């Protein structure tokens, strides 16, 4: 592909270092900057930077979202789309609405088939796992220093739980390099740390009072102090399996080509209420059926924000986290892949607290979707370069389906829901005119067969996990999807200005404690 690209460039722009080449190059760069990757000297990392602790070059950060490359790409894509729709409208002698409906239906169908294919692959994928006997053979002497980063904000409620969970990890205490980050203004959490008490070798890193006030910034601040050969992030409410660090160490040792290991996530409060039950259903599918499938063909994985284990050196080479991206995990996963690092999957659980109120859930999901959009914009600033870095056009398509595709799907679900409701209630002929027979069949297949299939797969994931009593809530899944659509709409709204674009709507923790007491 690189050779074809170079040959095409030569033909279009002339041989390098000729006058024609420079003229064309200059015009092209001003009109279509997304076609021209930044020169290598602009790609340097700066670990000395303070303030926002952004170590990445600015063109790789979500700090200034609407850079000129994005704007010009958006204009080009919008123009191409309008031209495409106009051509189809003229060719099929139909209305624009019908063409748009057809494109939406095709998108749904493609997305459904893609996800089904991934799930089918997941059934054959074997996660990396180790028996208790194998783990018992690991001696304390051979274990390296392992850094655990625990970013906290307003977590006084769960301080006891955090400390208990971290202390129960089966790893030599003197080889755990645990760093807790706390905001300078978060007095309650700092007092809770003191009250609960932490081991002497744990460190507390007070964050500077600078913007942005996000988790990735906190991680970047702490990253400078990291001593471990490997590192993992555990959020405030996480309870990982005791042997997770040892499993990760063995996995890193046996797979030198892998830069990062994902673990399986679960909720410990899945039974708290209806929302947590549905949330856990989604997680079961995601971590048992979907991500393993993605892993099976080495696709770029949208990592989870915690319980992901990294080689410290890999993180250092790629510039640590983007403090301005509110889904830093997803962005990190893509960037690691672009730098040639692969991910793996360890069969080890980390349990977290599921957001248990609707607003808390919506805020969390809004942040994730916002981060997905930020990740898309950042990585599509130079799409040709992205294709090159991901290795193939297919992997780039997978990225497009997984990241912006998920956002688009949720948005379309929102409008599709209302269209369906309007048709059922009114049977309006206007709506029927927009769905001629062939498009109606595609749309119905995607909606009915696709919807049913994914509800069913959710149930299979639950059944495999032994969460039998959650299966009975299967019929509420479409309502959950509607909530997801609502959160996505909210995310788009928040991107209207920089203040809201980088705002971190923190998820409330500890509600399971108050409900169980």
């Amino acid at each position, binding site marked *: 592909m690189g050779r074809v690209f170079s040959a095409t460039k030569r033909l279009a722009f002339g041989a390098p270092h000729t006058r024609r080449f420079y003229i064309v190059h200059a015009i092209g760069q001003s009109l279509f900057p997304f076609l021209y990757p930044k020169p290598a000297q602009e790609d340097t990392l700066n670990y000395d930077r303070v303030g926002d602790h952004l170590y990445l070059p600015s063109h790789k950060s979500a700090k200034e979202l609407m850079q000129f490359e994005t704007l010009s790409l958006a204009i080009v894509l919008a123009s191409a789309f309008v031209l495409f729709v106009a051509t189809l409208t003229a060719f099929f002698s139909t209305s624009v609405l019908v063409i748009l409906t057809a494109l939406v239906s095709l998108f749904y169908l493609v997305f459904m088939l893609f996800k089904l294919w991934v799930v089918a692959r997941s059934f054959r994928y074997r996660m990396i796992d180790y028996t208790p006997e194998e783990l018992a053979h690991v001696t304390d002497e051979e274990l390296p220093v392992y850094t655990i980063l625990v970013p906290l904000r307003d977590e006084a409620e769960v301080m006891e739980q955090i400390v208990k969970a971290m202390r129960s990890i089966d790893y030599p205490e003197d080889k755990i390099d645990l760093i807790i980050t706390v905001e300078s203004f978060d007095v309650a959490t700092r007092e809770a740390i003191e009250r609960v008490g932490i081991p002497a070798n744990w460190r507390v890193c007070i964050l500077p009072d600078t913007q942005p006030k996000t988790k990735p910034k906190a991680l970047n601040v702490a990253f400078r102090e990291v001593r471990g050969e490997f590192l993992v992030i555990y959020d405030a409410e996480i309870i990982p399996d005791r042997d997770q660090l040892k499993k990760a160490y063995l996995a890193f040792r046996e797979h030198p080509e892998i830069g990062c290991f994902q673990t399986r996530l679960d909720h410990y409060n899945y039974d708290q209420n209806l929302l947590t039950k549905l949330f856990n259903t989604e997680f079961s599918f995601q971590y048992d059926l979907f991500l393993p499938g993605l892993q099976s063909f080495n696709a770029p994985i949208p990592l989870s924000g915690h319980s992901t284990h990294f080689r410290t050196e890999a993180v250092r080479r790629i510039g640590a986290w983007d403090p301005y991206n509110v889904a830093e995990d997803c962005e990190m996963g893509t960037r690691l892949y672009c730098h040639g690092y692969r991910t793996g999957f360890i069969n080890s659980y980390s349990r977290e607290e599921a957001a248990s109120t609707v607003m808390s859930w919506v805020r969390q999901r809004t942040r994730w979707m916002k981060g997905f959009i930020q990740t898309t914009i950042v990585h599509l600033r130079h799409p040709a370069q992205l294709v090159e870095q991901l290795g193939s056009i297919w992997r780039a398509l997978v990225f497009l389906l997984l990241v912006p595709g998920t956002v688009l799907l949720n948005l379309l679900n929102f409008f599709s829901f209302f269209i369906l409701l309007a048709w059922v209630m009114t049977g309006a002929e206007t709506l029927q005119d927009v769905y001629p*027979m062939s498009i109606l069949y595609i749309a119905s297949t995607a909606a009915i067969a696709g919807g049913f299939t994914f509800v069913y797969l959710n149930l*299979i994931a639950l059944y495999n996990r032994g969460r*039998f*009593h959650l299966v*009975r809530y299967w019929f509420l899944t479409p309502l959950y999807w509607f909530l997801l659509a609502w959160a996505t709409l909210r995310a788009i709204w928040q991107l209207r200005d920089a203040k809201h674009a980088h705002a971190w709507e923190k998820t409330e923790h500890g509600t399971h404690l108050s409900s169980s007491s």
Partner: protein
Amino acid sequence: MHTLLTYPFVRARFDWLLFGAVVLIGALFARYVYVHGLLLVMVDQYSHLAIARQVTDSMTPGLSQLGFWPPLVHILMAPATAIDVLFHTGLAAAVILVPILALSAVFLFRLVEMLTHNRVIAIFSTAAYVLNPYMLYYAVTPMSDMLYVALVVIATYYLAHWWHTERLLSLVLLGAVVGMATLARFEGFLLAAVAGGAIMYRLWQRRTSFAHLESTVILYGLLAGIGLVFILIYGWVYGDSPLAFMYNEWSAYAQQRSLFLPTEHNLGVSLQYLLAASKHMLGIPLVVVSMLSAAILLMVLSGRRALFSVIALMLASPFLFDLMALVQGSAVIYVPELPPFDPRFFNERYGLYWLGFAVVMPALLAAYVYERVRSREWYYEPIALFLSAVVMSVTVIGSYTHMDEIVCIGCFDTITNSLQLSPEDHRIATELLRDEYQGGQILMTRALHNEIAVASRIPLRNYILEANYVYFDQALAYPWLFAEWIVMQNANHPDASEWSIENELVLQMWGQDDNILRYYYKVFEGESVTVLRLIPEEVEYFVEQHDIERERVPSLAGREVWNVRETFAYLQERIEAQLSAEQYALDR
């Protein structure tokens, strides 16, 4: 044979070898039936074929053409019927159904092997299954009977597999196959209930938690219930009622109301008729041996009685369903030896549906006898072999002689003497249309559509049927403006059926109206069918009288499809304007 079966090459590829062998048998049988002119003889065969074709070739192609019969066989045949030669010859059925027969043979083999741990017995059982002449016949003709029996066998296999292993995949596949069975025949509803009950019983027996039981049933039920949900939604969308399949004019209940129902409200008589039909379909030896085997096993089995009962119920569920339908009066069977002593057969094929039971029960008994007897002392082995061989031989030889009688000697007496044979005058009407048709639409009811649709070689998009909804309604109002031809039931014939008189819409609207003969002339009048052809000059005159633009009249402009909103509104407005003017003139 035992040595051959354990030979590594054979053992590793046995499923494929068996599949291939049955496909070959099916292909040869299809040729045999085709050459003897028995591939398409019954009304239902033509009907299934036409429905499958209409999914792709109709004025309104799509799911709406499936009608109110369980649609699986139509959906499966739709791609094959889109190929003209396969459609017109009826071979589209064999292309689709023979591989399904072969697949079910593989699953039957696996089922019997799983239950008996004896490959030889499994082979004999499969041979008896495949050698049944009606099983082969309904695998090469467009009917849903073999398809249903095959799905029952496959579902039973997955149930047994799940029973032993509790693997989730087996449960999911069980649900999927049962779901397909409910889309193949209404008997599938009972199959779904039996399988669901078996799952619940098994989990209760193993003292699983209520949540586990409930979730398992949900996982199974969501798939198994697909057929029922589809039928209900289809009825609601296309028939104005979810229960349209039970009570509309196309239901078995409606079509059979006027027939003599000897079994209605009588369990004993119903059983008698069903067993008589089974005798014709399975042969006396197989019926007797299977029932005896089941009875003996029920008495002697102690440890695995639950599994045996479940297997027996699954395989016998079609028999039980049809028995209930006979008692209820929504089904009817005629055999020559029972009242009304008509020499013709009707629905005798219901006796085929429990073929799975008939071949599996003797296999289980043979295996039981073999194990029990040989386990005593080593010298009992030959006795054990002999006894089990006797049981299996009766089964296989019974099937073979039945095959010989039916196929070679009797040459499918039950088929050639069926009450459901396509009427002679349908054939005449078909030939007439084939010879004289030169374009234009044909207005007719679906009930007459069958042989004509398949054999006249006219594209189905040139027919205006009830299944074309608004087009049919509009054409029915003013046929001469839309249809070049009309085919309707002959109301004047003394043997015109009660159902036709009550439900045949073209007949109801125009059968007694001489006005129709102003615009059409009779081309053919048979016992059951009247064919009319348009008189273009009269329509031209009508159009002129009503000041209608000629180009907007589909029957004159040669248009197959018209704009249902604009064209009909325009025509109706012109006609009513003229009527108002005439009325005004009269009043003055």
